[in-house]
C-alpha cells in the first residue's frame, strides 16, 4: 500500500516531463541567464567582469546543449571555452594594464552602429517569424540520434575525415603563429 503514492508521483513526474513543462522551464532559465550574462559582457566597465560574465554565459550555453541532447558538445564547450579560451583571456587581461581606459566604455559615434544593430535584429526576427520551415521542423522532429557519442565519432571520422585533418593542421598553424607573434624580437 505504501508503494502506490510513490509510483503515482513517479508517473506524474514522467507525464510532466513528457509534456515538456520541465524542459521548457529549464530552457527559459538557461536562456534568460545566457542573455543576461551576455548583456553584462557588453556593458561591464571592468574587462575582468566581462570575462567572468562570458564564462557564465558559456556554461549556460553548455547546459542548453545538454537540453538539446548533445552531451559531448556540452563537455567540449566547457573544456575549450571555459577551460582554455577564458583562461587565456583572463591571463592576458591580468598581464596587461587595463585600468587605463576604464572610464570610457563605448565609442563616440554610436548612432550608425545602433542603426545597423536594429536593422540586423529586425531582419533576423522577420526571417524567423516569416519562415514556414522552422515550425514544420519543430512539429516533425527527427529521430533522436544526437545523444550517442559513438554515432558522432563515426560521423566525424568517416564522413568528415578530411575536414578533421585540416582542423588539426589549422590548430598547429595557430600554435606556431601565436608563439612566433608573441615572441620578443631579439636584436
Amino acid at each position, binding site marked *: 500500500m505504501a508503494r502506490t503514492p510513490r509510483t503515482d508521483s513517479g508517473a506524474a513526474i514522467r507525464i510532466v516531463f513528457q509534456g515538456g513543462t520541465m*524542459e521548457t522551464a529549464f530552457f527559459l532559465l538557461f536562456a534568460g541567464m545566457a*542573455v543576461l550574462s*551576455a*548583456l553584462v*559582457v*557588453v556593458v561591464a566597465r571592468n*574587462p575582468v567582469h*566581462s570575462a567572468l560574465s*562570458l564564462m557564465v554565459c558559456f556554461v549556460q*550555453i553548455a547546459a*542548453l546543449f545538454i*537540453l*538539446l541532447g548533445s552531451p559531448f*558538445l556540452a563537455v*567540449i*564547450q566547457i573544456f*575549450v*571555452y571555459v577551460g582554455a*579560451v577564458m583562461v*587565456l*583571456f583572463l591571463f*592576458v587581461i591580468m*598581464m*596587461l594594464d*587595463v585600468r*587605463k*581606459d576604464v572610464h570610457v566604455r563605448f*565609442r563616440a559615434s*554610436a548612432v550608425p*552602429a545602433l542603426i*545597423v*544593430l536594429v536593422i*540586423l*535584429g529586425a531582419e*533576423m*526576427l522577420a526571417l524567423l517569424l516569416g519562415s514556414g520551415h522552422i515550425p514544420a*521542423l*519543430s512539429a516533425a*522532429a*527527427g*529521430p*533522436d540520434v*544526437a545523444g550517442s557519442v559513438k*554515432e*558522432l565519432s563515426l*560521423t*566525424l571520422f568517416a*564522413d*568528415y575525415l578530411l*575536414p578533421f585533418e585540416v*582542423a588539426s593542421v*589549422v*590548430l598547429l*598553424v*595557430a600554435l606556431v*603563429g*601565436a*608563439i612566433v*607573434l608573441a615572441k*620578443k624580437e631579439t636584436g
Partner: protein
Amino acid sequence: MVPLSWYVALGAGLFVIGAAGVLLRRNVLVVLMSLELMLNSANINFIAFSRFLGDLGGQVFAIFVITVTACEVAVALAILVTVLRNKATLEVDEIAIMKG
C-alpha cells in the same frame, strides 16, 4: 519539447548582443569576447538544427567552429600582446594599423 524557433530566437538574440559589443565597445579585449559570443550563438543554431533534423553534421560543424575559435583567440591575443608592446593602448580606434 522546446520548439526550434525558441532556440533560433535565442541564437539571434545572443548574436545581436555580441554584434553590439563588437560595434560599440572601445576596449579591444571586450570586442574579442563579444566575437566569441557571436560564434557561440551560431553554435546554438547548429546544434538545434542538428537535433531537429536528426542529422549529426550540425554537431560536427559545431566542433569545427569551436576548433577555429580556439585558434582565432590564440592568434588574436598574440597579436594583441605584440601591438600593446609597441603602442600601449587597448582602444580599437587607436589600433588602426598593424605595422608597429
